[in-house]
């Protein structure tokens, strides 16, 4: 018999699997103008995965004839000759060997520090320890604090379990609830060693949800295993309410106290010899025709130690075949073609020596947005590299970028053109429900300017009207009609490759804010 809640576990698990399968690809991050200007980075720009290029080799693709995209490598990329065959001296030739799905040996890497070592040490005595409170920090609306316990004298010792902590305000117990959170460090369980160079910590966390009258904690009393107490600096004034959005509640957010934990933890895991092997794609040919063989080179480099290719691993080429589908071609690596051998004549990746393998596949799909072609070594510590192939027609060229004039943005509300703000100032716009804000731009690259983000504007009660006969993508000519009162902020952006700042080596992914608009809609 199955309990309803257990059945729910299965139902949820199955539905979540289906839900994940239908989710669009996650956006891919491409750093644009993220230099640390006084105003911070202008933005992280997310682009559809298929068109993105993060840590990837970018290959432009020219169209050689109707319906026949062909690839061209950029000048800086590794190139083979025009013969499509990158095989050269030292390259292991391509062989379409069947996958063998070998069992690659792995070894266990214990957590660091190892709780088994700590278990052998005697319990700490109060006199051995120096206790201090570290400066706090904050992330995601939660304040974090840590109390550090270091060895003052004597031999290494251990602390374990739930620490005894009390919060005081002027010598009296502070009216702050405490909750015990169990293990702090993901992947670490057990006693904690305090020795030379190894400290234990007590972690405290306080979420910014204190909505009751403010309280103060000026001292923390820690009772050590021997019963002796130590006082350290308190957490200070209670944090803000609801992350800065006060509510009428009288909620007292507790301080979470976690078990003794090492200061730094690396969880235990399993890894193979391939952990320290890098894979890199190169040698994309100058001309590639969709549907015909595509040859390139993958270089495997063992960074620190020799890696014996026994058993010989498989690899997989992942090739998109439509916007939503990929095909995976799995082969055996051509280990027998590797000339480096160990003492037993087994093929080898020698430490620090790049070993190049010729790979052959074919492209069956190359839309204007580009595709991502991945090569994956099928080992427990997956090693992979990716190239992004773009049709040249969809990728602005550096020469085109250099010829862009400055784009002029115009904003008209109810027939009145808004004055240009100072370059670093946002445009402040007030309009009434029913008013229309018209956005337009001029310049030879003006068609690349867009309103961003459209989704948030819609959610905020702005109806967006596309130029006649065009899809709604925020381009010049778009009109914004205020439907309900409220405040919101949006940007008018342009690809950085279109910015009139001289030639750029490439122009994918990055955007610049031409105008920031603070919009207030009155009833």
């Amino acid at each position: 018999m199955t309990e309803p809640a257990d059945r729910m576990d299965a139902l949820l698990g199955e539905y979540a699997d289906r839900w994940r399968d239908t989710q669009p690809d996650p956006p891919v991050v491409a750093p644009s103008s993220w230099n640390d200007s006084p105003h911070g980075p202008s933005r992280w720009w997310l682009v559809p995965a298929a068109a993105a290029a993060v840590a990837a080799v970018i290959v432009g693709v020219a169209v050689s004839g109707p319906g026949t995209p062909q690839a061209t490598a950029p000048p800086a990329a590794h190139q083979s000759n025009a013969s499509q065959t990158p095989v050269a001296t030292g390259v292991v030739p391509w062989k379409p060997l069947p996958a063998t799905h070998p069992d690659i040996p792995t070894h266990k890497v214990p957590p660091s520090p190892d709780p088994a070592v700590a278990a052998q040490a005697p319990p700490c005595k109060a006199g051995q320890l120096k206790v201090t409170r570290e400066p706090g920090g904050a992330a995601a609306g939660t304040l974090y604090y840590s109390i550090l316990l270091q060895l003052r004298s004597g031999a290494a010792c251990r602390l374990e379990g739930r620490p005894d902590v009390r919060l005081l305000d002027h010598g009296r117990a502070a009216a702050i609830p405490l909750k015990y959170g169990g293990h702090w460090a993901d992947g670490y369980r057990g006693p904690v060693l305090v020795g030379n160079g190894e400290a234990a910590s007590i972690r405290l966390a306080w979420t910014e949800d204190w909505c009751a009258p403010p309280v103060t904690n000026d001292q923390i009393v820690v009772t050590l295993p021997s019963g002796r107490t130590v006082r350290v600096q308190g957490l200070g004034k209670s944090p803000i309410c609801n992350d800065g959005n006060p509510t009428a509640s009288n909620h007292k957010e507790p301080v979470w106290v976690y078990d003794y934990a090492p200061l730094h933890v690396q969880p235990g895991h399993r890894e193979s010899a391939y952990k320290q092997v890098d894979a890199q794609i190169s040698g994309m040919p100058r001309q590639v025709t969709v549907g015909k063989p595509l040859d390139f080179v993958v270089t495997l480099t063992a960074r620190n130690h020799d890696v014996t290719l026994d058993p010989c691993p498989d690899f997989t080429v992942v090739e998109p075949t439509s916007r939503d589908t990929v095909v995976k071609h799995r082969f055996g690596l051509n280990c027998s073609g590797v000339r480096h051998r160990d003492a037993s004549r087994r093929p080898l990746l020698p430490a620090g020596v790049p070993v190049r393998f010729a790979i052959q596949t074919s492209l069956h799909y190359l839309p204007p947005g580009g595709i991502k072609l991945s090569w994956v070594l099928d080992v427990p510590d997956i090693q992979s590299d990716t190239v992004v192939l773009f049709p040249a027609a969809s990728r602005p060229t550096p020469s085109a970028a250099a010829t862009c004039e400055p784009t002029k943005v115009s904003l008209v509300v109810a027939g009145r053109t808004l004055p240009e703000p100072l370059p670093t100032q946002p445009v402040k716009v007030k309009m009434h429900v029913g008013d229309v804000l018209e956005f337009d731009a001029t310049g030879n690259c003006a068609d690349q300017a867009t309103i961003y983000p459209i989704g948030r504007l819609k959610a905020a009660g702005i109806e967006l009207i596309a130029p006649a006969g065009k899809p709604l993508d925020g381009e010049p000519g778009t009109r914004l009609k205020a439907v309900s009162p409220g405040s919101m902020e949006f940007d008018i952006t342009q690809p950085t490759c279109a910015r009139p700042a001289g030639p750029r080596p490439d122009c994918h992914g990055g955007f610049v804010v031409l105008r920031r608009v603070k919009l207030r809609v009155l009833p």
Partner: protein
Amino acid sequence: MAALERGVAPQPAEEFAAWVEPHLPALARLAGRLVDPADRDDVVQEALLRAWQKRTTYDESRGSPRVWLLAILRDRARRHHLRTPPGPTLAREPVIEQHPSDIDLERALAALSPRQRLAVDLYYFVDLDVATTALVMGCAPGTVKATLSQARARLAELLGLTGETADD
């Protein structure tokens, strides 16, 4: 890349981008659960921008990069809802046409308490383990287990499964 997984968040933009990239699927999934599909990428972008601005505050001893990024995303999603004027609340469209019961399940999920829903979203839909879910939620693993159990019981009740028995 392995070296970048530990310690502090990388400072150069390119390295930071590579550092967050492995966590994008999880971030996108959580955003896909917490906000409307049309706003998913906006919220991921806001979270990444916030993470970039706060990268010097990342401390591996407080949790893995994934935990840190998911916690920031959760915060951004909450702010996103605060900015968004209240409107009609609709359950998400079911994702698979062949499973009409998904409609009922999404409606039942919408009826859970925010904390129960977050636990379900993180554990089932983002596919985190209990320990990581606990770190993102800022509570103990035992609390996550209890919350999930309560959520499953509530869902079973909403879906009318409490009166049924079924043999596997």
